[in-house]
C-alpha cells in the first residue's frame, strides 16, 4: 500500500469527539501529498472556523500519521477555503448524523 493510502487509512482513526464520526468520512481531509523523502503534507479543514476542537484534531492527525513507520516529517495545513460543506461527507457519515 502506498504511503498516501496508509495515511488516509490512519486518518480513519481520528474521530471528531463531538460528532463521533471520523474526519475522513466527515470530508475534512482535502489533500494528502507525499514527497520523495516520505514527508507527508495534509491539507484539511474543520466543519466551522473557530471550532474548539481545532488543536485536538490537528494534533490527532499528526499523531496518527507519525504512527506509520516510513513517514518522515508531517505538515498539516488547516484551511478555510474552500469551505467545508455537507456534500463533502460520505454517505455513512450522513446516515449517522441525519438518521
Amino acid at each position, binding site marked *: 500500500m502506498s504511503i498516501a493510502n496508509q495515511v488516509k487509512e490512519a486518518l480513519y482513526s481520528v474521530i471528531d*469527539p463531538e460528532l463521533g464520526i471520523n474526519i475522513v468520512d466527515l470530508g475534512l481531509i482535502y489533500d494528502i501529498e507525499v514527497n520523495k523523502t516520505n514527508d507527508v503534507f495534509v491539507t484539511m479543514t474543520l466543519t466551522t472556523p473557530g471550532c474548539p476542537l*481545532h488543536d485536538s484534531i490537528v494534533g490527532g492527525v499528526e499523531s496518527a*500519521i507519525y*504512527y506509520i513507520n516510513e513517514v518522515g516529517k508531517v505538515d498539516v495545513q488547516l*484551511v478555510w477555503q474552500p469551505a467545508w460543506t455537507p456534500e463533502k461527507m460520505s454517505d455513512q457519515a450522513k446516515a449517522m448524523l441525519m438518521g
Partner: protein
Amino acid sequence: MNGLSVNKKSETNIKLPLSFIFFGLIAFVVSQFIFFINSDALTNGVFRLPEILMGAHFLLLGWIVMVIMGAMYQLVPVVFLTPIWSEKLGVVQLIITTVGIISFSLLLGFNISIAVYGAVILIIGILLFLWQMIMTLKGQENKNILTLFVMAALVCFLITISAGLALSWTIGFGSSINYTAILHSHILLGVAGWFTLLIFGFSYKLVPMFSLSHGFKMKGSKWAFFSYILGLVVLIVSFWLELPALATVGWFLLWIGFTCFCLDIIEIIKKRLKRKLDRPFIFSLIAIGYGWLIHTLVVIFRIIGIHQDGIWGWMIFLYIICWIMFSILGYLYKIVPFLWWTYKYSAQVGKGNVPLLKDMVNEKVGVILFSLFSIGTFGLAFSGIMQVSIAVQLFQGLMLLTSIGYLVSIVDVVKK
C-alpha cells in the same frame, strides 16, 4: 488547494477557566442557601433586604459572572481565533475578582454601609478582565457581528459596575445623584446589556456548532444588535427623564431585537445536519424560548399598565433564571466536558481510543436536574406572586438541592 493556512494554537490552559467555573458553582449553591434561609423575604416580595442583596450578588456576580468569565477565557480564543492576551493577568484577575465578590457580597449582607470597599476590590478585578478581553479581541484579524455583540456586552458591563460603585458610594457616604435611575440602569445594563448581548453573540457561534448547521444566513443578527442596543439606550433615557411612555418604546425595541435573534436561531436549527441534539443543548435552546416569552410579557404588562413592584421583581427573577441561568446551565454541560476532555484526552487523539464528549457527562442526570430547576423556578415564582410562604420555602429548597446536584454532576465530569 490555495486556501489560507490558519494553524494557530488556540487553547487556553484549562486550569484558568475551570477555576472560574468551580468558584461559580460554589457561589451558586451559596446563593441558593441564602435565598432558602430568607424565603420569608421572597414571599413578601421584599428584594432590597441586605440578605437578599447578598444572595442576589452571589448569584449574579459569584455564579453567573464568574462562569461567564471562565467560559470566555476558553471560548474567546477559539471563536475569535486569537489567543488570550495574558494568562498571567488572568490568574491575577481571578484572585482579585474572587476576593472582591466574596467581600462585596458579604458586606452587602452584614454591613452594607461599608460595602463600597468590597465593591472597589471587585471593580479592580472586573476592570482587569475587561482590559484582558479588549486586548485579546484587538488581536482578532477579521472582526464580525459576533465581535460587535461581545464588545457591546463588555461596554455594558463597564457601565454596570460603574453604576454599582455609585450605588455603593451613595449607601456608604450619601450623594445627591438620582439613586433610582442609577439602580434601574445598573439592573438593566447588567442583566439585559451584559448578559443578554453576550449570550446572543456566543449563541450565534455555539448553536450552529452544536447542531452542525449549514447554509444559514443570520439575516436578523444586525437587526437584533441595533434594536437591542437602541432599546437599552431608550430605556435608560426613560429612567433618567422619568418618561413611562418612552420606557414602553424601549421594552418594545428590546422585544424586536430578541425576536430577530430568535428567528435566526430557528433558521439555524432548521438547517442543522445533526438530527438528534444533545439534551443539555436543547435546554439552552428552551431558555431562548423562555427569554422571548419574558420579553413578550414585559411589553404586554407595560401596555396594559401592570406596574406593581412585586410582579416586576419576579419578572426580573424569571429573566435572570429562565433565560440567562438556564442558557448557562445547558452550555456548561458542553463546556466543562470539553475542557476536561481536552486536558485529559486531546493528546491521545490519533493514538488510540478516546471517549466522545457526550461520554464525559451523564445526560440522564442532566435531564432530571434541568427538569427540577424548571419546576423549582416556576413553582417559586408562582408561589411568590401568590405569597404562599410554605410553597416558596419548598420550591426554594428544591432549587438549593438541585444546585447541589448540579455541582456534583459537574465534579463527576472531572473525575473521568
